[in-house]
């Protein structure tokens, strides 16, 4: 009765089948509540004006985009160590969600940058390392797409994910050294100096929660489809041989 039993595709399908609907509802609630609250019940920022409200999409998506990669890293390690197909397929599914989130963060950021910094894009460390993260996602996904033997693909992408993570951290430092940026610091950090004022804080938390749950849902669904595809292929192969 270990937790690993859910690494069995079939068992996983059963379990996730139960989780998904529930998670969907909760995330929907959080998102609607958070975004509504954020957009209609909070005052405009005194210096940013109403543009500040992009934060409710920008920050959550950015957070998810980054943490999705961590999740992929763990999943890849699990695959390499314990050879559980579910984990690597989950990683694959997560990459698709992650890349979209990254794109959203980039675009909302750019939209925000225009009024705030008067430019769509600046080679600010945060932004730059995000662009790099985006490239990592693209590479990971492309590698999956390029290899037809699923197991080989799983192995290779996992190694790439691990090596990539190391280099991602490395380039984060490199970029920081390369350019001191104008981008916000961590707004969730607890010291008051950094902290965005409470009015924005709680709705932000809500929508972050919503985004995270959304990520979970999408990843689960993606994994389920991946598994189903493999099942279908397997059954088909059994049919015609």
């Amino acid at each position, binding site marked *: 009765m270990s937790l690993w039993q859910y690494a069995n595709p079939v068992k996983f399908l059963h379990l996730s089948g139960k989780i998904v609907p529930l998670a969907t509802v909760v995330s929907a609630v959080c998102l609607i509540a958070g975004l509504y609250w954020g957009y209609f019940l909070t005052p405009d920022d005194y210096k940013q004006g109403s543009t500040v409200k992009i934060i409710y999409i920008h920050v959550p998506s950015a957070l998810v985009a980054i943490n999705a990669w961590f999740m992929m890293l763990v999943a890849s390690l699990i695959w390499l160590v314990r050879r559980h197909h579910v984990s690597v397929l989950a990683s694959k599914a997560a990459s698709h969600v992650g890349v979209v989130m990254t794109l959203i963060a980039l675009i909302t950021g750019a939209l925000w940058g225009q009024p705030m910094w008067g430019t769509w894009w600046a080679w600010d460390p945060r932004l730059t390392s995000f662009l790099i993260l985006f*490239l990592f996602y693209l590479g990971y996904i492309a590698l999956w797409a*390029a290899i037809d033997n699923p197991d080989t693909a799983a192995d290779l992408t996992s190694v790439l994910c691990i090596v990539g993570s190391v280099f991602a951290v490395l380039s984060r430092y490199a970029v920081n050294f390369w350019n001191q940026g104008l981008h916000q610091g961590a707004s969730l950090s607890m010291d008051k100096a950094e902290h965005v004022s409470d009015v924005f804080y709680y709705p932000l938390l809500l929508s972050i929660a919503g985004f995270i749950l959304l990520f979970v849902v999408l990843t689960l669904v993606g994994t389920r489809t991946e598994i189903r595809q493999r099942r279908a292929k397997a059954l088909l192969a059994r049919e015609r041989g």
Partner: protein
Amino acid sequence: MIALLIRDLRLAMRAGGGFGLSLAFFLIVVVLVPFGVGPEMGLLSRIAPGILWVGALLACLLSLDRIFALDFEDGSLDLLATSPLPAEGIVTIKSLAHWLTTGLPLVLMAPVLGVLLGLPERGYYWIIVSLAVGTPALSVIGTFGAALTVGIKRGGLLLSLLVLPLYVPTLIYGAELARRGTQGMDTSTPLFMLAGITCAVTAMLPFASAAVLRINLR
């Protein structure tokens, strides 16, 4: 091992072996930039170190897919895989050969091309240093990417896409080193980091590359 190294070097030297390829490409980039950016020497000499580094990196990037692709297509790689050579040995030799036929020439060529971009006096020394310290990392990282994409038909595109983000830290520190050096600023940090990257990468990555190569040849 030695035999493999010698063969690869020889292949590179022979006509069409792509020994000149990277050099030529380096030259092309550096020659084209003034046409594109415009002739003002002030501007050019400001961007010179950066352009030289970017050019060298691109030249490196383009020569990567020759590391394994040729041997794979003509079946040599299958034979090497069944040969007594360990995969680690193969990848190490391959990246060494790649550096000798690509990185080294680039290092030597850079100052010459620096003239075209009006690189300031002090720059020459630092361009050579930064490239000499940095290019080995490029070769080793590139070998990893090449090993990942062995067997993928015409994986050239994928290869560059995979390697690009991996190259970023090296490029940043390398170019930063060259630029600071040229402007006479303190260079210790980037030099230290660049050397660090090269050492670390050369020590670790070959194992990853070997693992990946084995996966691909099984």
